[in-house]
């Protein structure tokens, strides 16, 4: 029984459960912790979304040591383990993966061919758009004096919708944006938000280095069945050694490889990733 899929789904569900539990516990007088994925913490420590830290620092034109420090936790995580936030923590990632299953089912129903991984050209175009969008948003935050991504970031929208409905009994329009994103993804842009638009993912992707956790292929064990690239919802192709910054280290390809040719070694000190393409 593979433990990783269970653990990963468990982690994603736990995050959603925590988002619901924190306001409910607070109402029951258990209030040592408050917050959402935009920022959470206790009296002694805080962990904040680094993109939020970046935007608000630019928007308010101030640097707050405490706030900057609170943004480091997820940055450090990205340095070490790549975009694991996206596959283990992010609630939008959770819904997006579910949406992807729906997308695949719809394709089968309508007898469409299975999706193909990104070509190098597609990957490059995607990355250019992704980081332009990130850059434009940071500039806009500085110019307009508000953290502009927070208006559309599904992580914040889902977090605040949960707080609104549990704590205040209100339902806002936030979830409309999330619904639109999921609809578009299911319809024609598989994991499109996560791959091409999400500035949070972009930021974590930019933190990955040669030494970060990634998928590595043992060329001798690999038989070229291409099962891994069919499994990957983010358009990567481990069989062709094309694992880029869109990889969220979900490990699904590793688990599905019939020859156990793929692995995610935790530490790659001093050596280049063997047969893996270093993120360009």
């Amino acid at each position, binding site marked *: 029984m593979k433990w990783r899929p269970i653990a990963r789904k468990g982690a994603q569900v736990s995050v959603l459960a925590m988002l619901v539990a924190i306001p409910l516990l607070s109402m029951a007088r258990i209030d040592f912790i408050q917050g*959402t994925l935009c920022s959470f913490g206790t009296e002694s420590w805080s962990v904040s979304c680094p993109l*939020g830290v970046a935007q*608000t620092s630019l928007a308010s034109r101030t640097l707050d040591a*405490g706030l900057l420090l609170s943004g480091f936790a997820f940055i450090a995580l990205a340095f070490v383990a790549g975009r694991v936030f996206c596959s283990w923590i992010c609630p939008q990632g959770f819904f997006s993966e579910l949406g992807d299953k729906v997308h695949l089912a719809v394709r089968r129903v309508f007898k469409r061919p299975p999706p193909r991984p990104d070509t190098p050209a597609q990957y490059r175009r995607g990355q250019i758009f992704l980081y332009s969008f990130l850059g434009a948003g940071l500039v806009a935050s500085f110019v*307009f004096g508000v953290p502009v991504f927070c*208006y559309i970031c599904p992580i914040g929208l889902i977090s605040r919708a949960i*707080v609104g409905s549990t704590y*205040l009994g209100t339902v806002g329009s936030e979830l409309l944006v999330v619904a639109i994103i999921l609809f578009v993804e299911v319809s024609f842009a598989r994991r499109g938000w996560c791959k091409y638009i999400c500035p949070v993912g972009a930021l974590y992707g930019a933190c990955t280095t040669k030494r970060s956790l990634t998928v590595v292929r043992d060329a001798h064990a690999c038989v070229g069945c291409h099962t891994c690239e069919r499994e990957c919802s983010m358009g990567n192709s481990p069989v062709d050694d094309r694992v880029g910054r869109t990889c969220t280290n979900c490990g699904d390809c590793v688990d599905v490889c019939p020859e156990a040719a793929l692995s995610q070694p935790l530490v790659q000190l001093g050596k280049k990733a063997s047969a893996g393409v270093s993120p360009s």
Partner: protein
Amino acid sequence: MSFLFDRSGLLRPPGAADEADLVGSCIRCARCVEVRPYQSIRLGPITALRSYGTPFIDPLGSPCYLCMRCPEVCPTSALTVVPAVESAMGTARVIEESCYSWTGTVCNQCYRSCPLKGTAIDLDDLLQPVVTEACVGCGVCLHVCPTEPRSIHLVPRGETS
């Protein structure tokens, strides 16, 4: 594009930075919403434009009771810890034309309910309520006022009327 630079007109929690700084530095995390013991802070809806996701208080629904917990949990400089008397949220004003006590019905619930009783609202010699400079604009008086519409008007800081 003036709507991008509008003042929100919202009543902010105690210790709030100026409007421009607040909408820039607030990370929209909702920690101030969740902190106990009261549930007075709400988040601005999308129609609040620049104030979307930022904290505000609607005194008609639930006023601020000056427990001063919200700045303690704010991770940014949007809300700063200050003493209750320096909350600087706004100023209340008694609408004497409709206030019971000013028009022949002895009431004074605003005076009685004020968390800074005796200093922020006082009663004159004829037992009519008068708001002083010490008012921090928490809105409890507006909430309890028994007239319909209320006979207290709350002007958030930075606004003129």
